[in-house]
């Protein structure tokens, strides 16, 4: 019973934890411009994050080594540092976007200027990281984030023309008024939103925080293989809602208030309150995860003592680094930059940085000195190799597409 509960909890938190500001915004934008024409990318991204998280979770559980320790060990200090720089900056952008997302969702509930909410959100993130136990932090935000299921419910309540939605999904390609390059630009953004590296840093370091062993591998596999795909379904539902309500009114999504309009349309105030709580929890949870991830990456590269299972004074540089990150994120938001825009950039750059973080995991998952007889099987290596190519292509194409499309405008 206890075990079933643990698995169920893990799956639920994985669903809630999958969706963050990046998924919310990118899916809503894509839905409002392309309908479900890019739903296949979510599918590709979800399988990718399953493969990636499953491998790094297994490496962490079997060898006790977290992802960034392995990146440095296998790629050496130079490539490792380039990787750290890129991952850390993207992480910082994501922290900024998530804290901004918390402020924006509080604005939806209060209509108070988000700039005033930023310090509150930032302090909230810090105090939870400083004081709360890892398990608690993971479970509460994950479960509250589950209220985002309201987007799936709303999609049903809108009773859309399922045939035309399916048509959009099954015949991928840009609509007449959009360019091919814009279509592919958003494909990469969506891929980056689904496969953000911070999720993997957090997942593998979390395995060590919770002292996983080989016995926990089955649980971890269930979390990943059930939780992430359901999170992907949620992402498609967000895009679907935008496709049904916003696309016909030619509303290109540029703000969070537009993302929740379809939910209010379908289910009124009750549904809207679920959506706002869900967005708040998902962004707050992701703000915690990304802040922790910036601490994890730095500490693991430099060999500092890290982890929430230690008291802060025993992982001093780790905590100091996170405090600095939160301050920098606040400073960026204080310039008045739109968090939605920061989000759009962070998901694209996530796709750019992905190959260097993915490659070492694929290598170590095959290294018997680390993994004993728990190395990748043939099937896993086949799909892992396919994704290495997919990730490389997406990373190489991202920047040129960003320039050609003017960031999708």
């Amino acid at each position: 019973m206890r075990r079933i509960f643990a698995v169920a909890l893990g799956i639920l938190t994985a669903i809630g934890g999958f969706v963050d500001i990046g998924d919310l915004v990118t899916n809503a934008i894509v839905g409002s411009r392309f309908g479900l024409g890019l739903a296949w990318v979510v599918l590709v991204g979800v399988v990718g994050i399953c493969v990636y998280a499953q491998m790094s979770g297994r490496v962490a559980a079997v060898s006790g080594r977290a992802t960034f320790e392995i990146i440095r060990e296998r790629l050496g200090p130079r490539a490792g540092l380039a990787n750290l720089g890129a991952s850390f900056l993207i992480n910082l952008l994501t922290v900024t976007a998530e804290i901004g997302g918390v402020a924006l969702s509080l604005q939806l509930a209060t209509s108070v200027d988000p700039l005033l909410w930023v310090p509150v959100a930032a302090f909230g993130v810090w105090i939870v990281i400083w004081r709360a136990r890892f398990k608690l932090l993971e479970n509460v935000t994950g479960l509250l984030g589950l209220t985002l299921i309201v987007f799936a419910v709303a999609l049903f309540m809108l009773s859309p023309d399922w045939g035309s939605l399916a048509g959009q999904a099954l015949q991928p390609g840009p609509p007449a008024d959009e360019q091919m390059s814009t279509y592919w630009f958003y494909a990469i953004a969506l891929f980056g939103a689904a496969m953000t590296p911070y999720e993997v840093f957090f997942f593998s370091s979390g395995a060590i925080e919770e002292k996983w062993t080989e016995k926990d591998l089955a649980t971890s596999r269930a979390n990943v293989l059930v939780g992430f795909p359901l999170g992907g379904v949620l992402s498609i539902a967000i895009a679907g809602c935008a496709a049904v309500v916003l696309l016909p009114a030619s509303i290109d999504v540029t703000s969070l208030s537009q993302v929740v309009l379809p939910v209010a349309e379908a289910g009124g105030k009750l549904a809207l309150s679920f959506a706002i709580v869900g967005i708040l929890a998902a962004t707050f949870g992701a703000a915690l995860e990304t802040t922790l991830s910036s601490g994890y990456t730095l500490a693991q590269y430099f060999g500092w003592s890290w982890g929430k299972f230690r008291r802060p004074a025993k992982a001093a540089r780790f905590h100091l680094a996170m405090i600095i990150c939160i301050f920098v994120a606040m400073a960026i938001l204080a310039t008045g930059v739109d968090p939605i825009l920061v989000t759009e950039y962070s998901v694209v750059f996530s796709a750019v940085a992905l190959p260097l973080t993915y490659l070492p995991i694929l290598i170590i998952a095959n290294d018997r000195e680390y993994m004993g007889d728990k190395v990748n099987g043939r099937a896993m290596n086949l799909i892992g190799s396919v994704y290495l190519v997919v990730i490389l292509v997406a990373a190489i194409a991202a920047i040129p597409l960003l320039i050609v499309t003017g960031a999708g405008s």
Partner: protein
Amino acid sequence: MNDPHRPAGRVLDAHLHILDRQVLDRDGVPVTTVDDLELDGIEPGAPIEPDAPPPTVAAILTGPDLATRIFGGRPPESRHIRIPWKLVSEVGTTIRLGITGYILDATWTERWVSEHIIARIPGGRHDPE
């Protein structure tokens, strides 16, 4: 003793198995990463006598060695932070030391940040709730 065909002990490659790995202390607390290794018994520019004893690993280097390994150059002799190799108890996927890391030079920044900043913030010395 050093015929590679008949190894007398465990054989490993310095770059592959030691460089850039985590150094943990007796209690499993991270101390640093292996930024470089110091080898004793190699005299650059001098011919090696056929019967000279082989070089040995003297110390793990950390601190400024990371920067010089990445950007080139060499830190002054006094700036090296050394962890003598004789403190190492085990070489696996990590390098384990046989002592507590808290007293080593390699952890002085951790101690400084801990004492001067983190421990002064309320709750810094307590376990999370």
